[in-house]
């Protein structure tokens, strides 16, 4: 049994349709970010890890409603309350006003005890992050993404050719934009694990792109590869790796689906981001990275002119 054995799809011919899809999705994401800026004040729904603040997760022994909690925590002035997983679990988030980090949290706990009694619920998780740490985290996350971009570009430029590195970074950037747009659209809370998930997507997307690029490189360096029509060479390379792409992405997605279904609320956001990332990463290595490579080549040449000049210079007696 072999899926997509001897496949021969004209992927490059379809690229214009893919461009439209990509641009539409990215524009939607950016619109969501802008909408968030006007309604939330920030372009993403940053969690306490980044903004600083307190989070308390409580589990009631009896079913409770968010409205009951809101009433207990001061009605209209109540901090935001969200349901977490099951019916009787809630997360309360509060920003830090006071200097000592645990004051707000203790207040909320006291209010809950006053309203429901101390035996009605259990505090299963608390997080309190000072604003200083939150600001540092934002900075560190941005630095991490920038540095990994730069180093990957350098590595790929060394191992392949510069245009391969550039095309891979364009594809990865495309994936990150779509992911960030998704996070903004659904207002997924940006916590530390979410950052890890986004960076995992960077890794996965690169992995996928490299497999395709590796085949292009191999075909290029094979006998007659440089004389072959670039479009048909790239198509041949994508089709050649298609069985692997489908099998690997399929298996990964299946495992992630299992995590999503049974993994519980704690890792649900994380898994969702990864599922999206794997899908987008697979799509982008075929419909973004490979066409980008051709577009770069069309505009700036494939480097052969420079190579020939160099060879000529080396050959001609000085």
């Amino acid at each position, binding site marked *: 049994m072999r899926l997509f054995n001897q496949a021969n799809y004209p992927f490059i011919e379809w690229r214009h349709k893919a461009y439209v899809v990509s641009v539409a999705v990215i524009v939607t994401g950016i619109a969501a970010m802008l909408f968030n800026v006007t309604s939330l004040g920030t372009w993403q729904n940053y969690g306490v890890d980044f903004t600083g603040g307190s989070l308390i997760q409580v589990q009631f022994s009896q079913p409770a409603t968010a409205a009951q909690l809101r009433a207990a925590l001061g009605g209209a002035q109540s901090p935001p309350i969200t349901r977490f997983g099951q019916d009787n679990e809630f997360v309360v988030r509060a920003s830090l006003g006071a200097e000592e980090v645990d004051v707000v949290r203790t207040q909320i706990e006291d209010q809950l005890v006053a309203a429901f009694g101390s035996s009605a619920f*259990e505090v*299963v998780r608390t997080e309190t992050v000072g604003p200083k740490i939150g600001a540092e985290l934002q900075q560190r996350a941005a630095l991490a993404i920038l540095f990994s971009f730069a180093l990957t570009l350098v590595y790929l430029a060394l191992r392949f050719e510069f245009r391969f590195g550039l095309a891979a970074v364009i594809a990865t950037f495309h994936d990150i934009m779509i992911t960030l747009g998704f996070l903004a659209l659904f207002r997924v809370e940006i916590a*530390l694990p979410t950052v890890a998930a986004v960076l*995992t997507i960077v890794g996965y997307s690169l*992995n996928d792109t490299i497999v395709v690029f590796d085949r292009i490189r191999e075909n290029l360096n094979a006998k007659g590869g440089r004389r072959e029509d670039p479009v048909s060479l790239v198509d041949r390379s994508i089709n050649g790796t298609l069985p692997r792409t489908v099998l690997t992405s399929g298996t990964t997605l299946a495992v992630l689906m299992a995590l999503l279904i049974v993994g519980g609320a704690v890792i649900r956001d*994380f898994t969702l981001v990864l599922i999206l990332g794997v899908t987008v990463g697979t799509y982008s290595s075929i419909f973004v990275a490979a066409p980008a490579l051709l577009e770069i080549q069309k505009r700036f040449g494939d480097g052969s002119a420079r190579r020939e000049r160099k060879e000529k210079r080396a050959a001609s007696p000085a």
Partner: protein
Amino acid sequence: MFKSVRGRLIVILALLGMSVGYLVNNSITLGLDLQGGMHLVLEIDDPEGTMTAEARSDAIDRAERILRTRIDEFGVAEPIVQKIGSDRIVVELPGNQDEERAKNVIQQSAFLEFKLVVPVTELEPALGRIDRQIVAALGVDALREMGRDVEGPSQDLQDLIFTSPEADSAQTGDETSSDEQAVEAEPEVNLRPFTALLASGDVPGSYLVAVEDVESAMTFLALPEVRIAMPRDISLHWETAPIGLGARTYRRLYVTEEDAFMTGEQLEEAVAQRDPQFNQAQVSFQLNRAGGRRFSQFTTQHVGDNIAIVLDDEIVSAPVVRDRIGATGVIEMGNADIAEAADLALVLRAGALPAKLRIMEERTVGPSLGQDSIDRGKIAGIIGMVGVVTVMILYYKMAGLLAVMALGVYSMLVLGGLAAIGAALSLPGMAGLVLSVGMAVDANVLIFERIREELLLGRATRTAVDEGFAHALSAIVDANITTLITALILFQFGTGPVQGFALTLSIGIVASFFSALFVTRTFFLMYLSGKKASDPISI
């Protein structure tokens, strides 16, 4: 030795043996998010920014050592106390903790001093000056807003005041003239915001302040102008525990010498116990030889005086010296329970913190939530594993089985690697493992697809296998290295959970690289060894 199948098997078995060894000896610890517990990030509290970078770094080093001693004695299994960067300490306490107690043990400065209590008459000459400074600094309106009685002391308190206003002005005669000038300009300047709060004490060298007035009195005493106006060589300390007298509750404010004649540095041992007579909690301590000598010398000279035992600027108790005291003493803790006494003894033994520590970040996870995550993680892991194994064997048959065996080796190596490093496995760490399993599978898929392609081109079995591995190599290397780059950067810039993710991912990548290219290859060589070059293989 890597050429022969036997040599390869020896390498694999040796690595497996090492992994098992590490697993048996170290076992894998679970992160706090999985087993529950408390995570604190602490920083030196230096609001005025007066400490130099060097002083901070030195203070954090000492604080780390002291915290480690305290927490080791606190009795938590496998705690972590770790300096992060140049000015932070991370404390992790697994399991279900009494949060308040733990934080108290961690944050208490535990700076112990022994000071001589002096008669209140030493302070009295300065009281008028202090009152004037308070009025000048805060203004009458602000005092009124605080609800302070700016019309002067009320009548019942007047009787309790130790000194009459006449005595005050007589003693500070040289200042009376300026006082009178001020009275002409500002009639209210004679008000006594601070003195009005003081009632004569029931113990020599102390005043009583009603508990509802304590906050105002503290505000007054914290004013820089008041600190300057205080007589030299004298300091004021509150007693920690309030006392009830009649219908009202008070706190004592003691007048003591400014310099301590001894500090907790001379302390050698401290033990919590119960006072056999009144069954109250107390901490008995033993001083080192030099401290004992100083203590007995000092107490000989001060029989009949009170000695204040000052802990972090507050007085725990101020007993009367009845006789010369040698190298041992007792700190009475009043109504505190024995656990509190035990904590105090613990922090006294471990020593004082060099500076105040401020909590920057605090996370707690209840054990039930952690257990829930583990259970769900296990189920998800099993489903994922079964899925991958089924697909590999159905799709690649014999070759798939070989790959699954190689994945088994991979799992052992990753777990062994985690145990060897001693890293705790957290939830994001598990995600990192899932990703690296994916990469390990992907490497095998790449190789097998390549072998199939070579077979389709009509190559002989053995050549196809060799070519398959050779051609898949570059893609696997490049993919693994770029992911490794990302993981290492994450480790460098990340904190806590992200680092955990990066660490397991890094270990996983190295192991997956080895398992796909070396272990699968070895198994393939064994599988091919009985076959002729042209025999068909099951792939």
